[in-house]
């Protein structure tokens, strides 16, 4: 807008530019405030109910008062009652999630670098395959994988039932595509000139990768690690199928199998307490790393 052709004086311009604080403005603000409150309530309310249910007396599991009366922490030690093996299940979850994350990161960084940076003929097909992998219904892969790992096929005579390998390797089927896809998105965001500048300065491509690209991609790698870790931690179907004995349950499988002393009774209080215990570390992690996680989740979606 050139000043020469403008019919508006400076004073009028200033008046126009002053934000109008009329009723529309305050309505908008209130609306936004209500909206924010709605969002927070929407997200937290069911979780609040889970916490409240875990703080009731063990025998009042299905009570519906909005605040427990009396407040009781009895459910929390009950979670670790040896009969449920929850402590061991947590350890299993950590081992499986961590190992899967490390393996997928290792393979994923290499593959993502190639997909983001290099030019080669079958790139479209490879990307399509990787995306396609996340489209398979878990149930299609589950039974053949189960048969493969329990020696039902003569060409694969191993029986890894109830071992860590049997939990980790099938988890790669969804963890690896997820990891590669996220990392590819992150690597694409790095300027192309970086390696070229490094190579101009005398680095070999390998050195350029290790010394320049990796450190800069570290936040993205870290975020992908968190997202993959959480995805494997929450996975249910594979863990349910491959870990059938109690000492090989992961945390989510263990929760789904909580039982009381008679086999029929459902200890709602303990189940909710276990749910809280499993979720709270994830939430704390999410609170600390929220910016990274949001960046990671959206990097895949925004090109």
């Amino acid at each position, binding site marked *: 807008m050139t000043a020469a052709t403008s019919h508006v004086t400076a004073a009028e311009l200033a008046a126009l530019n002053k934000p109008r604080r009329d009723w529309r403005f305050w309505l908008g603000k209130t609306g936004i405030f209500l909206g924010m409150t709605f969002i927070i309530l929407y997200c937290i309310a069911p979780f609040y109910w889970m916490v409240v249910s875990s703080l009731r007396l063990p025998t009042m599991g299905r009570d519906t008062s909005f605040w427990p009366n009396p407040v009781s922490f009895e459910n929390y030690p009950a979670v670790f009652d040896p*009969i449920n093996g929850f402590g061991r299940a947590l350890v299993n979850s950590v081992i499986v999630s961590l190992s899967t994350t490390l393996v997928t990161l290792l393979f994923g960084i290499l593959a993502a670098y190639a997909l983001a940076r290099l030019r080669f003929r079958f790139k479209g097909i490879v990307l399509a395959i990787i995306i396609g992998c996340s489209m398979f219904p878990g149930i299609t892969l589950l039974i053949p994988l189960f048969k493969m790992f329990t020696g039902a096929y003569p060409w694969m005579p191993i029986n890894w039932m109830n071992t860590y390998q049997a939990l980790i390797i099938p988890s790669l089927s969804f963890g690896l595509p997820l990891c590669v896809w996220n990392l590819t998105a992150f690597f694409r965001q790095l300027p192309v000139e970086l390696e070229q500048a490094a190579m101009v300065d005398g680095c070999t491509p390998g050195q350029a990768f290790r010394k320049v690209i990796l450190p800069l991609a570290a936040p993205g790698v870290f975020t992908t690690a968190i997202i993959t870790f959480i995805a494997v931690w929450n996975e249910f179907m594979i863990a349910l199928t491959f870990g059938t004995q109690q000492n090989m349950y992961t945390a989510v499988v263990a929760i789904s199998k909580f*039982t009381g002393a*008679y*086999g*029929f009774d459902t200890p709602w209080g303990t189940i909710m307490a276990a749910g809280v215990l499993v979720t709270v570390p994830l939430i704390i992690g999410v609170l600390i790393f929220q910016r990274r996680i949001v960046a990671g989740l959206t990097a895949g979606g925004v090109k």
Partner: protein
Amino acid sequence: MTHARTTRRVLAAVASVGAVLITAACSSSSTPTGSAAAGGGVNWDERGPITYAQGKDTAGVWAGVLKEWNDAHPNEQVTLIELSPEADQQRADMIKRGQAKSGEFSVMSVDVVWTAEFAANGWLQELPKDKFPTDGMLASAVDAASYFGKLYAYPQSSDGALLYYRSDLLDKAGLKPPTTWDEMQAACDKVLPTQKGMSCYSGQFQKYEGLTCNVAEAVNSAGGEFITADGKPAVNSAEAVAGLTWMVDGFKSGMIPKEAITWKEEESRQAFQDGKILFLRNWPYVYNLASKTDGSSKVAGKFGVAPIPGKTGPGVSTLGGHNIGISAFAKNKGTAGDFIKWIASEAQQKTFLQKGSLAPILESMYADADLNKQFGYLSTLGESIKNAQARPKAVRYGDVTSAIQDATYAALQGQQTPTDAFNGLQTKLEDLLK
């Protein structure tokens, strides 16, 4: 897409489909072969360590039991393998071993309704009658452990349904526990007007195995049956339909609370303990929990147990419980045989009753005076089990129970009339039991 490219793609597709079909045709057996689990040709003298697999030991009773055996048999140790607490998962685990012909579980605790399936698939070792006598055991339990006239497992623990009733309210009204459905309705008519917000009766009516138990009881107590003794379905008889009609009418008239259609054992127990229903049909485990004096039960000391009522007389309970069987592929079957005999003997059955509230399989124990003093429900339970009837014995029990649940739940939700529901069920059962 160019012509060449299309042709190539089509060829690739055809080739891969062809590859799949070729591998399919060339592989595993397409002719049925018999399975080998006959009683003969088995080495019953082989001894050594074995494993025992069952669902989660929720009562914590097996550690002590196994220690006793292991101390007495240092060379024939038994290791406990605890499976999931869920019946479906236990069955799936045992089936996996069976299909892999693995003897990983030497001895297994098999639910009474799976025994026929496991036996027919050749996963259980047939037990010759001369080596494995069944005197003194409950007849219905032994029948549940047999298939095609042969014994495939020993009964391990039994279970039957009990009618829990509010003795305080019935005594105040001068009534005795009902033995027929009409008596129960009359008792409710007399007592309920004085109690606000109380319903008459509940069982377990959610769509799961418990529903099969409840509807089997209704049908059998009305004089009908699901399957006749020769294995033919007979569920569309007037008596069977009468049983289902009683349940459906119960919902319609309000005798059974509306929300009971979502209740399993726990929810119905909770309702009884909170004083919301006058009569409850449930398993024996409720007795101890409802007697707790820590404030969780409002009915502690105010209730009694009786056999469940029927249409014209006492009702027929469903037979629950487990059988203990030997895997057809197990090693050391000699030890396994001795182990299951030991489990079925009186001393161990007493331990299971006292420490795990598991109903014993020996008839004599139900008349024992000391045990009856300890367990107030014992003689009633014995009566219940003696007259109990097993659920339909079928190799494809999973499908049978699914069909029964479908028909019953549809009738309870008012989607079908009882007659239509059971006519449809008759057709399905005929198809499944061909």
